[in-house]
């Protein structure tokens, strides 16, 4: 598995397809924190949403980094399609983890906030970034060539699902009227709600942990659905 991860990562680096989303991410961070002071949780919430969209970009380019034919060869060497896709998911998650850390540490290092962020701010900041990154990876993977044949549909699909996920947050009241629907829709709103708390918050309520946990569980369900559909497609 380590060899597969190493190959997939080096191959991705050599494609240079990470340059546009990575540049946009860095640009957003720099621009967002160019004026000081900034509110802590609001700023984290903004960069988390940016990361949410950019992780979609990273995910698609990672899944499409190899030629279709090379993918068949690599899968054959890896001895299983699940193993191959798992490798890509792991790299996506590692990129999400790294960028989440950068998003939290960078403003702290340059002193971009009015007050020095406490550990709970940083923990909330990290969880909001990382949970949305993992959610974006899961949602975007559904639209990769593994399941969607037409490349154009891939980009429209990813953009569509990510935008819808954010729009749902604003339409929450309407959606809540349809019983059960809120559980089916991507839970981006949970992160946004939690990050809407005041900076003066003194402790993280238990419900926050559950809500972050739900985002991860939701993403895991989508990833499992991906593997189910992917294995079914082989037949």
């Amino acid at each position, binding site marked *: 598995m380590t060899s597969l991860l190493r190959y997939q990562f080096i191959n991705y680096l050599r494609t240079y397809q990470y340059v546009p989303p990575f540049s946009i991410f860095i640009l957003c961070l720099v621009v967002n924190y160019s004026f000081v002071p900034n509110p802590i949780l609001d700023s984290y919430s903004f960069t988390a949403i940016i990361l949410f969209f950019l992780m979609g970009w990273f995910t698609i380019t990672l899944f499409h980094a190899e030629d279709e034919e090379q993918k068949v060869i690599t*899968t054959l060497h890896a001895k299983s399609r699940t193993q191959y896709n798992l490798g890509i998911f792991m790299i996506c998650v590692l990129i999400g983890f790294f960028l989440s850390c950068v998003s939290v540490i960078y403003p702290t290092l340059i002193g971009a906030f009015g007050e020095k962020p406490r550990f709970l701010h940083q923990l909330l900041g990290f969880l909001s970034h990382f949970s949305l990154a993992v959610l974006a990876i899961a949602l975007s993977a559904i639209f990769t060539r593994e399941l969607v044949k037409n490349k154009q549909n891939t980009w429209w699909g990813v953009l569509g699902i990510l935008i819808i996920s954010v729009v749902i947050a604003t339409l929450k009241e309407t959606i809540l009227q349809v019983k059960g629907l809120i559980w089916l829709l991507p839970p981006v709103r949970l992160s946004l709600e939690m990050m809407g708390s005041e900076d003066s918050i003194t402790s993280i309520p238990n419900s926050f942990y559950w809500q972050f946990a739900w985002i991860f569980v939701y993403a895991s369900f989508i990833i499992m659905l991906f593997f189910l559909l992917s294995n079914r497609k082989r037949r």
Partner: protein
Amino acid sequence: MKTIMEIQDISKQYRGKKILENATFSICANQIIALVGKNGSGKSTLLKIIAELVDADSGSIVKHRQSLKIGYVPEVTPSHILFTPEEYLFHMGSIRGMTKKQLQLKINELFELFHLQEARNIRIANFSKGMKQKVMIMQAMLEDTDLLILDEPLSGLDPKAQSDLEETLSILKDKGFSIVLTCHETKLLQHLVDTVLVIQNNKVVQADSFHKNEIPKNKLIFEISNDELLDNLLPFLEIQHQSLLNNGCHEVITIIKTEDTDQVLLDLLQKKASIRQLTPINQKEEQFYTHF
């Protein structure tokens, strides 16, 4: 020959359309099998099923060796491999679970076999199609492969590259590899292949009497002046065409078995016939390729 794999009653449908129906055949050690058929007849699908890349709807594949290693080369060569062949083979071998030491030995051996030492450190993306195809076969042979599956290995290559690759395949055959391939190249089929399987109407049938040695006929054109002599010859020859020329001679076009050719020529010359043309033909093969 020792059977290494049996394909038993494999059937496959794609989007409700039947592609393969009860495909059954065996692959033996040191045997080259060619799958031929029209485009879209299911050749590539059958190769993918053998390589375990696609599941069959029904039927089974029985491996006669528990650890039978299969190498696969797809029809389309990947165009954007961002590694040198050495790096690429190293990565593919590592993913397969080979140790660094094993890989170093194997990669050196393969570079020598495929005469690619000089291109070791050039990115594959800059290679010609023939060289890329060689690297593809090299990756398929990394782990002491027993069975090589090649999907149209000569497709899109220029005659020189085809001839190079054909030579390589011939060496592989001599080294004892079993190969299943699809192709349309008559030259390859004639010189290398042991068994030709035709996919026709979703079924796999063996095209026997395919080798040129099994289709030994010649086309002979001769002139003869004597009617009586011609009448004597008619029962022994398969006459295709007969016409009376201006000079009063008869021109006869006939098909004769290669093994009978010497005797027939001798008889005709003794009967004062003039031989105009003698051409070897491969009747079944001609019909075969006209069909595909």
